[in-house]
Each structure stands twice: as structure tokens, then as C-alpha cells.
């Protein structure tokens, strides 16, 4: 995973994207989005409601594993997060494995709820904490979930958003430039005309991470929480 400073920038970017939403859910293996959603909740004085899979303290569901998915199909869930072993130029993600479908040479954890949530949740934010040419590819080997217009990708180097069918560079984090991002990316991309450096994590957000947000993170993602502090 990336250096703590870069993770903090990612948390800041995602927390800003969640402002004003009502209900945000965080799935498995998603520590950066969990931190960002909790920061957004604390700074928004309890809004959005945040549901973290696997948490006993930040999970409002009472009807078992299916409730999150039923919420999504009804339009009661505003945002969700997906990573992927591969993310491609169209914003499609691959969570399953590498190689030809049905005869893969390497398998990851599995598709989880991504094939479903990606088409039903209005704001799906893609994230990847190890931006590189092997993870950000021209075309995914397996489409766990296709990309859609307007979708955001937040990595430890930069922020992209899909426009006109492809991801476009929106900003790069401190220490990067458009050229360094390009060299580390496996697909060709255009740069938005107003692209610039990604704003850092606000002091108020950092304080939340040291306080109440950190306590929840230590429950669900202890290794990640230790890395941040």
C-alpha cells in the first residue's frame, strides 16, 4: 500500500466527494473509503449515514447481509466504493482474476457484490492504493462491472473522472505531475483543461482521523489504522 501521506490525500478527496449525500456504504477490503466515509459523516454532523460491512459500531442494518443490496436496488444507497485487481480506461473493474475468463491463471478474492452494486448505485467511486501499469490497464481481462460516465477513480497518485467514454486526469497529488502519472498508468488518457494539484487533507478531517474515526477504523481495519497514525 501507498505511503501514509498519499493515503491521507485519497481520504480527503473521497470525503469531499461524499458531501451532502444521505447514505454511503463501504464494502469488504475498503479501508481508505471507510476512513473517508467516516470523516464525511463526522464533518457532516452525522450525514451521510455510513454503513461499514464487518463493523459492529458503524452498521445500521438489522436485516442481514441482503439489506445493503435491497437498499441499493430501491435507490436508498447513494454511494459505494470499488477497487479491482485491474481498472481500465473505461472505468470497468476486474475483481476476479487475470487471464481468459473460465481459464484464469490467477484468481483474487472474488466479485463480491460489485456486478450488482455498480449498476444500481448512482455514485460508485473507484479506488486503488497502488497506482501502476499492471493495475490501471487499457482493457480488463474480466469485466466484474462495466464503467459508466461520470465515474471517479481515486488512486495514490491522482484523481480521474470518466468523460466521453474514457477516464480523464482531473488532478495529481503533491509530488506528482501529469507526466509522472502518465508513466505509471497502463492506459492513455487526456488531461482535463483545469487539472492541477489535488488539495490535501483538511485539518478538520485530519483531526477526525486522530479521534473518533480512528477508533472505528481500529475495530474493522486494525493494520490500516496503525499505518495511518
Amino acid at each position, binding site marked *: 500500500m501507498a505511503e501514509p501521506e498519499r493515503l491521507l490525500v485519497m481520504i480527503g478527496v473521497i470525503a469531499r466527494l461524499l458531501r451532502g449525500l444521505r447514505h454511503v456504504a463501504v464494502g469488504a*477490503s475498503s479501508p481508505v473509503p471507510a476512513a473517508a466515509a467516516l470523516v464525511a459523516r463526522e464533518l457532516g454532523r452525522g450525514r451521510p449515514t455510513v454503513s461499514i460491512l464487518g463493523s459492529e459500531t458503524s452498521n445500521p442494518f438489522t436485516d442481514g447481509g441482503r439489506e445493503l*443490496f435491497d437498499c441499493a436496488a430501491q435507490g436508498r444507497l447513494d454511494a459505494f466504493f470499488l477497487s479491482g485487481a485491474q481498472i481500465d480506461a473505461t472505468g470497468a473493474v476486474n475483481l476476479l482474476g487475470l487471464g481468459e475468463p473460465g481459464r484464469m491463471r490467477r484468481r483474487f478474492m*472474488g466479485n*463480491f457484490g460489485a456486478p450488482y452494486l455498480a449498476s444500481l448505485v448512482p455514485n460508485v467511486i473507484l479506488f486503488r492504493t497502488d497506482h501502476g501499469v499492471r493495475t490501471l490497464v487499457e482493457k480488463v481481462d474480466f469485466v466484474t462491472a462495466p464503467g459508466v460516465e461520470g465515474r471517479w477513480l481515486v488512486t495514490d497518485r491522482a484523481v480521474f473522472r470518466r468523460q466521453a467514454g474514457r477516464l480523464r486526469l482531473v488532478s495529481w497529488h503533491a509530488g506528482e505531475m501529469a507526466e509522472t502519472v502518465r508513466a505509471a498508468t497502463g492506459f492513455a488518457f487526456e488531461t482535463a483543461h483545469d487539472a492541477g494539484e489535488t488539495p490535501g487533507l483538511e485539518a478538520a478531517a485530519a483531526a477526525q482521523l486522530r479521534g473518533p474515526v480512528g477508533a472505528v477504523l481500529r475495530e474493522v481495519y*486494525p493494520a490500516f489504522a496503525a499505518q495511518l497514525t
Partner: protein
Amino acid sequence: MTATPAELAALIPDGATLALAPDYSGCSLATIRELVRKGASGLRLVGLPQLGLQADLLIAAGCVAGVETAAISLGELGLAPAFDRAWRAGSVTVTESTCPAIHAGLTAAEKGVSHLPLAGVIGSDLVGLRPDWRLGPDPFTGEPGLLVPAIRPDFLLFHAAVADRSGNVWIGVRRELMLAAHAARRTLATVEEVVAHDLLADDLWAAGTIPALYVERVATAPAGAAPVGLRNRYGPDRAWLAAYAEAARDPASCKTFIDAWLRDG
């Protein structure tokens, strides 16, 4: 009269389909240990909707022929090592799924119908990996639709905090266990303790209780969910889990580790 975990394991025949909860729900590691000990084989696991340590231990011990699941992992500790090795060797078949398709399949079984329609998913390559799923227009809206078949496991096996003397089992908010108990042909549970009062007599308890109607046998197993932990009772044994994740990467050290786990309990 409650049973022992070994008695529960003895009820599960080789080749059975066995629904198991993910590590954050209710895991009867006490019975998994007995399944390994008795040399269970040919089990077909169903994840509710994903699989974790229980599945990896059973796979490491050679008890499993196949899995149907949305994912299988050791959570923050990464890939499930024994599963990964078995998958590469082709010794365990994988029916790839996604969380809501498993919930829908169990819901269909719960309702006694052959299938349910499912939103989303169309557009994913997953559909192409599932010849048993059906695509076609929704008869009411004409929109493209996906139908998934009922999932009716032979067994549900889980661990919970409390049962009563009648065999009612309290699961609290872990209602994927309720759904799976409704869907499965037979349900077996271990619990931390058996209480003297009737769980169905008080709505505070009854609302989170699987009635004995669905539960075939209950065994008492204090700390029966260790090392993954049990909600509101005890947390995961992180040192044990990290040691397993490391040891299980190599077949020989994996076997040594599991042998020690069998000796300890």
C-alpha cells in the same frame, strides 16, 4: 439435551452442500474442527454470501470438492491460501457468484419457488460464467431481466451466543443466518450457552431468534467461534489468524499448523 460439536459433524455426510457464514457472522469453528477430525470429504460449500477461515481450513484438510460463493478470503489478511492452492491445482471447483445472487437464491428456496429475478448484474462478465442463470425480458416491464435459481443447501452450520432448552437459537441482527436456516434442509448450530428461559416468550429475544422449527440440533461450544470471534462476545484472535495466513501458504507448514489446531481443541 444439547449435543456436542462432534455429534453435529457426524450428522453431515460426505458430499453434502454446506452453507457457511463469513467470518463476521456466526462461524462454528468448533464443528469445523470435528469435520476435519472425522475426515469429511466431497463437501460443497455455499458462502453466505462469502467464505472465510472455515472454508480455508476445510479445503486445507481436503474436505471440500467445490464452493459457490461471491468471494473467498481471509479479510484484511488477504487471499485464502489453501483455497488458492486448491484452485490452481483444480482440486476444488468454483461456482462464481455475487452477494445478492446468493441472497436471492436462498430467498427463492425460503419461499419454495424455483427462482427469483435479480436487479443489476447484466453487463458483468459474471453472467457468462453462469449457464444456470437465465436472461430474458421482465414480463411486467419488458426490461432486460436476470433470473437466478433457488439455492437449497443440505445443511446450514453456524455458531451463535445463546439457545434455549427448546432449541430456539438467538442470532440477533445476523439475519443472513435466519434466511439460510429458512432455505436449508437441515440446520445445525453451536452456541456459547443454553439459557433456562424461553427465547420466544419475550419479543426482545424472539425478534432475533431462529425458532426450533428450523433447527435440527444444537450443541454447546464455549468459545466455539474462536479464532474468528463472535459479535458482542469476543473478538478475533489476530495473532492466530496471522500465523495461519503465513503457515497455510506452504502445504507442509499448513498441515503442521492444522495438526496443532486439532490437538489443542
